């Protein structure tokens, strides 16, 4: 990285990181006493348990429900899968069927050699994740480097087959990342739907089969395009780690993965989702997935100028939580957004200050920059102009992942040509202003520099406050996005389970003790 253009104090940045470490340690102390139903379902999925029963209930849910009913969950689902395998179940499916039966689960005794029986299945799951990671690395290495920022487009028809058409169209037009928006209510479902789906509201259900279909569609045009198209989905909500496992199995490349988002905007229980987040991030780390965090959302509900320090404070915390889960800098796509009121005098200068500050404070993170949404009015011409300023700021401050702004934001899900207009706009600006960042310097004591310094100082103050009482207390006080969330409130709290003294999760052990080798950047 070149010298700081903003002259931010490296001592102050280091102090923020140190405070974030205190916050993360506090979260760890609180969460490591528990597991969750989603985490245990994820263990089953990683072992190869899949499918639904006659009532469309996923088998991992069935098995975890009966283990919970039998009081066996505090030991960890893996122990019981291993025990079933050691006691006659010939396959993972047989073992899962045994656990899914309430009486079967209740009657199952722990077998002393459960680990030995389970080991080949653990290894098979890990091997599938490693294989996908090296496949991605091989594919990426076979093409020229990508132009940055990566252009990120969203498809959201509700029908996976229609999504495939739109995703290929967007990729051919120049999109480098394709995100399939989930059906609006999915984050609150405590199970993952199954199979290819054709009806969703405002998006398409994240299912393993939908992941597989979209991956195949993007791979099928890789050679034609001469580049690898990244696939993105949402590893958030009540099934956060399960979706991480599904993504790792189907070679997704990026995952939105942020507990704070679910806590604040979906009223998901903080304890539940922070526990789930840790396991999901472990999986993403091993899979070579780039995570995206959701700080941009603070700016959509509250004032973007006032919230800037909270965004930065949250980024420091998210960075630390991510690193503690084994993610490396190149995998931590911290989020922020271009959401300042365009009527505000010097609003663009504030945007540049905040974006440049994020770049300088997190030099190796693939920053995810989100487009204007709050101040999009239905005047599509003004919207297109706002998006141009956004794209220019993105290039000028060296952002990494650029979520394309749609001129029809807030009006309807994007038309095919809305997306095309967005891609060509951002691509043109990226080319036309290619080396602008190298040329730009800011007036040493000017508005941009002063603004960036003030945001950093205020972020430090917020971190001090959060560190003094802990993250859970800060959430209950409404420090982020003016929203208060209690540690024992919100959705999914009933799925938090105290760990027994001998709790075991062989995947967590593998991810923790054998961190993934450094690989090519995704």
């Amino acid at each position, binding site marked *: 990285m070149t010298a700081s253009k903003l002259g931010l104090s490296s001592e102050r940045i280091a102090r923020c990181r140190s405070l974030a470490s205190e916050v993360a340690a506090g979260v760890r102390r609180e969460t490591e006493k528990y597991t969750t139903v989603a985490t245990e379902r994820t263990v089953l999925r990683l072992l190869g348990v899949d499918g639904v029963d006659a009532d469309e209930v996923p088998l991992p849910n069935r098995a975890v429900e009966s283990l919970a009913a039998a009081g066996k969950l505090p030991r960890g689902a893996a122990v019981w899968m291993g025990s079933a395998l050691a006691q006659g179940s010939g396959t993972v499916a047989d073992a899962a069927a045994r656990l899914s039966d309430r009486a079967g689960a209740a009657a199952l005794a722990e077998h002393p050699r459960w680990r030995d029986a389970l080991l080949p299945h653990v290894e098979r799951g890990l091997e599938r994740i490693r294989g996908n990671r090296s496949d991605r690395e091989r594919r990426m290495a076979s093409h020229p480097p990508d132009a940055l920022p990566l252009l990120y487009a969203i498809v959201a028809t509700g029908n996976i087959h229609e999504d495939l058409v739109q995703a290929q169209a967007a990729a051919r037009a120049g999109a480098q990342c394709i995100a399939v928006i989930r059906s609006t209510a999915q*984050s609150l479902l405590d199970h993952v739907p199954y199979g290819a789906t054709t009806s969703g509201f405002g998006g398409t259900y994240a299912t393993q089969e939908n992941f597989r279909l979209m991956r195949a569609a993007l791979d099928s045009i890789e050679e034609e395009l001469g580049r690898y198209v990244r696939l993105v989905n949402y590893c958030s909500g009540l099934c956060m780690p399960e979706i991480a496992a599904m993504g790792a199995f189907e070679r997704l490349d990026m995952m939105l993965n942020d507990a704070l988002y679910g806590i604040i905007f979906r009223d998901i229980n903080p304890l539940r989702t922070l526990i789930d987040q840790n396991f999901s991030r472990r999986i993403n780390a091993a899979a070579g997935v780039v995570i995206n965090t959701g700080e941009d959302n603070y700016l959509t509900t509250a004032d973007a100028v006032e919230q800037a320090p909270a965004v930065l404070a949250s980024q420091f915390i998210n960075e630390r939580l991510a690193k503690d889960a084994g993610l490396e800098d190149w995998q931590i796509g911290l989020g922020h957004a271009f959401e300042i009121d365009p009527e505000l005098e010097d609003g663009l200068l504030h945007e540049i200050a905040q974006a440049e500050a994020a770049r300088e404070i997190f030099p190796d993170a693939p920053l995810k920059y989100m487009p204007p949404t709050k101040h999009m009015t239905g005047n599509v011409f003004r919207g297109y102009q706002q998006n141009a300023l956004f794209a220019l700021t993105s290039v000028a401050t060296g952002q990494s992942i650029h979520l394309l702004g749609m001129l029809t934001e807030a009006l309807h899900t994007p038309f095919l*040509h809305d997306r095309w207009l967005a891609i060509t706009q951002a691509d043109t600006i990226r080319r036309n202003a290619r080396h602008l960042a190298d040329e730009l310097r800011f007036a040493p004591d000017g508005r941009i520099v002063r603004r960036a310094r003030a945001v950093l100082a205020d972020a430090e103050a917020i971190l001090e406050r959060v560190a003094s009482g802990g993250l859970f207390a800060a959430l209950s006080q409404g420090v982020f996005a003016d929203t208060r969330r209690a540690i024992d409130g919100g959705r999914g709290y009933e799925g938090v389970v105290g760990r027994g003294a001998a709790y075991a999760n062989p995947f967590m052990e593998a991810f923790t003790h054998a961190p993934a080798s450094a690989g090519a950047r995704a």
Partner: protein
Amino acid sequence: MKRTVRPYGDKKNDGAVQVSFTLPVAKSALATEAAKRYVSQMGIRDPYVTLAEPIAPDFTFFVVYGRATHEVDLSAISAEEAPAGALTRDEIDAEIARRFGRRLIVLGCALESDAHTVGLDAIFNMKGFAGDYGLERYHGFDARNLGAQVPVAEVARRIREAAADAVLVSATVTQNEIHVRHLTDLVDMLEAERLRDKVVLVAGGARVDHALAKELGYDAGFGPGTTASVVAAFLLEEISRRQGVA
């Protein structure tokens, strides 16, 4: 007396319009001809295709200019203006105190599958929107933002429990006009529960307007750009009218 209008481009009654759309046809002379014919059938003369861009292998994006031939007689139609408030926050608070001697209870939510809260938050949050403070900042309102994805049955329950004076429903457009269905479902539910007459019901959202809201059985509808003070002034007057307070 008839007062007819047509679009105005650079002179009166020239009917100048611009249309943009995509045809699911590969770019070709045939596709362009199809675009012209299509626009002609919309009643637009002299279609002039200024852009025919292949945006995907089998899709072409068109921008077409032309002259609309039809006209509308303003004297033969009518439309209701959305209610607008001229009172400040302090004046509204003072009026509520004077007329009611209590805080008015206002619930806000987005319904069912609708997870969007931007519009709702703009009206409710302390900070408000465009420099206009949200309902939570008013002394006169006990503003309770229930958030997104609230089932209609839950809304009915909360109205009953809170003895709410008004409910604001934010509807964000998703696919298949589902926002309209949810808005209607709530009216049906409140009628079935005999609650409809007890509350002032207001809809808001990017594609909501006063006419649509009235049609769906709401007391008012507010479109994009609406600030909290406008909604607050409407609530004051409408709740006063309903409850016979002046």
